[in-house]
C-alpha cells in the first residue's frame, strides 16, 4: 500500500458561478480517494460552504479575487485547504449555535460554518503572516475491515 500524499490544486476567481466547478473538483478527488457516496457529498458541501464564505464575507462579493483550493490525498485522509486574501475572519467569535435559537432568530450567516464543522472531522482557521486567511478541513477514511 502506498503511503505517499498527492496534492491537487485549483485556483479560481471569487465568483459563485465557480462553485459548481469547485464541487466537481473535490468530489472527483474524494471518489478517487475511496470515499463512499455519502462522504463525498459531505466533503463537497463543506468545501462549497467554505468557498461561499470566502466570496461573500472575506471578499464581500468582489468577483475579481482569487480562491485557492488545495486537496491532499493521503493514505488515511483527505485534506482540503482553502486560502484567500480577503477580510480576516475570526472563527473564535463564532460558536456552534444553539440550533433552536438560531432558527428562531432566522440568522443565516453562520450556518455554513456550523455545517462545515458537522460534515468534516476537523476544521481549522489560520491567519497567515502574509495576510492570507486559510481554512483547513480534514475527512478521515474509515478503515475497511
Amino acid at each position: 500500500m502506498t503511503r505517499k500524499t498527492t496534492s491537487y490544486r485549483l485556483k479560481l476567481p471569487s465568483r459563485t458561478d465557480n462553485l459548481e466547478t469547485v464541487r466537481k473538483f473535490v468530489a472527483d478527488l474524494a471518489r478517487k480517494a475511496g470515499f463512499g457516496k455519502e462522504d463525498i457529498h459531505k466533503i463537497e458541501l463543506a468545501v462549497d460552504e467554505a468557498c461561499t464564505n470566502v466570496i461573500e464575507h472575506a471578499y464581500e462579493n468582489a468577483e475579481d479575487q482569487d480562491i485557492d483550493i488545495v486537496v491532499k490525498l493521503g493514505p488515511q485522509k483527505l485534506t482540503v485547504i482553502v486560502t484567500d486574501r480577503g477580510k480576516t475572519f475570526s472563527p473564535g467569535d463564532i460558536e456552534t449555535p444553539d440550533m433552536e435559537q438560531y432558527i428562531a432568530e432566522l440568522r443565516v450567516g453562520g450556518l455554513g460554518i456550523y455545517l462545515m464543522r458537522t460534515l468534516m472531522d476537523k476544521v481549522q482557521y489560520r491567519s497567515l503572516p502574509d495576510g492570507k486567511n486559510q481554512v483547513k478541513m480534514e475527512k478521515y477514511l474509515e478503515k475497511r475491515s
Partner: protein
Amino acid sequence: MSGFEVSRKDMDRVSVVSLKGYLDAHTASDFEDVLQKLVDEDRVRIVVNLRDLHYISSAGLGVFMGFIENVRQREGDIKLAEMSEKVYRVFDLLGFPVLYEIFDSEAEAIQKYQP
C-alpha cells in the same frame, strides 16, 4: 451552466414551486425571486416540490428561512414535498424538520391547505 431551474404553478388556493438541479449561493437568488413574487401577490400558501433537486447548500436553506416568518404572519406557510434522502440529510443537519412540514407527495402537501 447554472444547473438550476425553478418553476411555478398556481392552483386555486395554493402555489407550487418546483426546484430542479443545484441550489447554491449562485442560484439561490432565482429561487428567492420566485418566492418574493408570490409574497408580493399575496399568494402565501406555498408548496415547494424538491423531487428534482439534487443538491442544496446553506445559501439555499437560507432562502427558506428568509421567507417563512413573513409568510406565516400572513396566515400562509411553506410546505415541502418529495425531497430526496440526500437533500433531506442537509435539512436535518440544520434542524429544519421541526420548523417545516415535509410530505412524501405534492398532493398531500396541497391537501393540507384545504379548509
